[in-house]
């Protein structure tokens, strides 16, 4: 069964070092062109020329995924705390309401943001009231991608954070106050450290799919604002360059693995301290 775990990675890895097929696809062989292409462009005479475009995409992917995770966290903690403080019946309805959009089609949730930010949409028109130019669009930039990503992934952050806040022992908060900790100190020194496991799992649940986002950068970012996911999709979609697409996929996987390992080590350290 362990084989099944590494099979997809193995397949993608093998193709990432294969050669490009004459008509799309790939031919078996060993060739690092796919990886080299991430940093170098081959000139007419075969000389290697450094190119930053794909490194920028990799950097943008990590940055946008990180910002998405932080924004989701900032929104999720207070909301989760408030939901946890509600009486039983209302609490389950609110949790249900957080879950519900997640079961709606992803492409439609992104599409809704295309309408909101697009030309003549509610937001540009609202900004028009304050002198924004007529017919402006807020689409096709990293901010638009970010808006759709935060929106589509936020339920994945609220739920685990809520679960760990709910388990929080309320007497500890009271104890903090008895020891003259104000609300801010209590939040920082008691509530947040105790909900760290929920925050960590929420961060993984948001960060990993955000790193692999495909729809948001394609639809919201337009052709030029790519992320790793949309770049992979592009290389495989038209059968354009499978080895290069696979090399990007392996790079993406490496980033994901590094993040998961870093979080695992952190939480292991925290447990050892306790």
């Amino acid at each position: 069964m362990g084989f099944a775990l590494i099979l997809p990675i193995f397949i993608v890895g093998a193709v990432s070092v294969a050669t490009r097929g004459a008509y799309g696809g790939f031919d078996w062989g060993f060739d690092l062109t796919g990886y080299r292409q991430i940093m170098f462009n081959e000139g007419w005479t075969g000389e290697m020329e450094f190119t930053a475009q794909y490194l920028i995409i990799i950097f943008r992917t990590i940055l946008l995924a990180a910002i998405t995770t932080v924004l989701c966290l900032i929104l999720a903690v207070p909301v989760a705390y408030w939901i946890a403080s509600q009486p039983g019946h209302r609490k389950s309805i609110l949790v249900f309401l957080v879950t519900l959009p997640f079961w709606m089609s992803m492409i439609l949730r992104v599409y809704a943001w295309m309408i909101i930010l697009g030309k003549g949409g509610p937001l540009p028109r609202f900004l028009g009231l304050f002198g924004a130019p007529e017919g402006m669009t807020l689409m096709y930039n990293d901010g638009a991608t970010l808006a759709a990503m935060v929106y589509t992934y936020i339920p994945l952050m609220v739920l685990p954070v809520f679960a760990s806040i709910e388990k929080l022992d309320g007497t500890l908060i009271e104890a903090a106050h008895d020891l003259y900790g104000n609300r801010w100190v209590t939040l920082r020194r008691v509530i947040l450290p105790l909900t760290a496991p929920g925050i960590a799992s929420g961060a993984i649940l948001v960060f990993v799919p955000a790193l692999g986002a495909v729809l948001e950068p394609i639809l919201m970012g337009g052709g030029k604002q790519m992320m790793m996911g949309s770049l992979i999709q592009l290389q495989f979609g038209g059968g354009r360059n499978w080895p290069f697409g696979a090399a990007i996929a392996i790079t993406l996987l490496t980033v994901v693995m590094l993040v998961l390992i870093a979080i695992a080590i952190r939480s292991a350290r925290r447990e050892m301290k306790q």
Partner: protein
Amino acid sequence: MNRHHNVKRYPGLGLLSIAFFAYLYAPLLIVVLYSFNANRITSVWTEFSFKWYGSAMNNSALMAALKTSLIVAGIATVVATTIALLAALAIIRGKGVRFRKLSETVVNLPLLLPEIVLAVATLILFSLIGLQNGLLKLVIAHSAFCTPFAFLPIRARLQGMSLDLEEAGMDLYATRWTVFRRVTLPLIFPGLFSGAMLAFLISMDDFITSNLLSSGGTTTLPVYIFSLIRAGTSPELNAIATMLIIGSILLATIALSVAAHGQNNND
């Protein structure tokens, strides 16, 4: 206790949370609202009309995509739920199962890796074995990534169930199969049902894998919607979106309430 002196209360959270729920639902509401706009240009309101619903219903490409999605999701749901049930029974109930943790990780693998990586791996695998049939490719791929969504509620249900009733059944000379059919299956049914519903919704929703694997004649609904969006928004799209939103709300409500109901009964 006077609410102002309740130290667990943080002022302003209620307002913030209400704003959060507005943020969560306003975009969907806007799509629904625009679907009733008679104007061809979505963003300019003229008058209330159902006409885009009519034209959506008469759109044969849309109906073909819906049919493909329903066939794929239907088969994938049955396959994924069956595999998930067997896996859950083996992992939770099986005696002397080695690598329990590893087995669970394998079942849950699609949840841990970005979907695009698995989609690409599937695409390469199918091209290696030379699988040409578009529908078959979709069914196999969907069955695979839907399995963990069916697995999680079933496992939760099995774990929360005490062995007493099954043992009582055995004591009354029921065979293993009879115990499974008359005791275990009815008890885990809520988990099974909501798992199947979630698998169905996940399959219906999938874009990334379907888009890479789809070929002419096997366009699924999200892939078709994607092509509509790329072609420039058609007002029909809002009507399609609204019908899908309502469908998802219904299915998710049923699935989640069956799961919640089952949990309460279990306590």
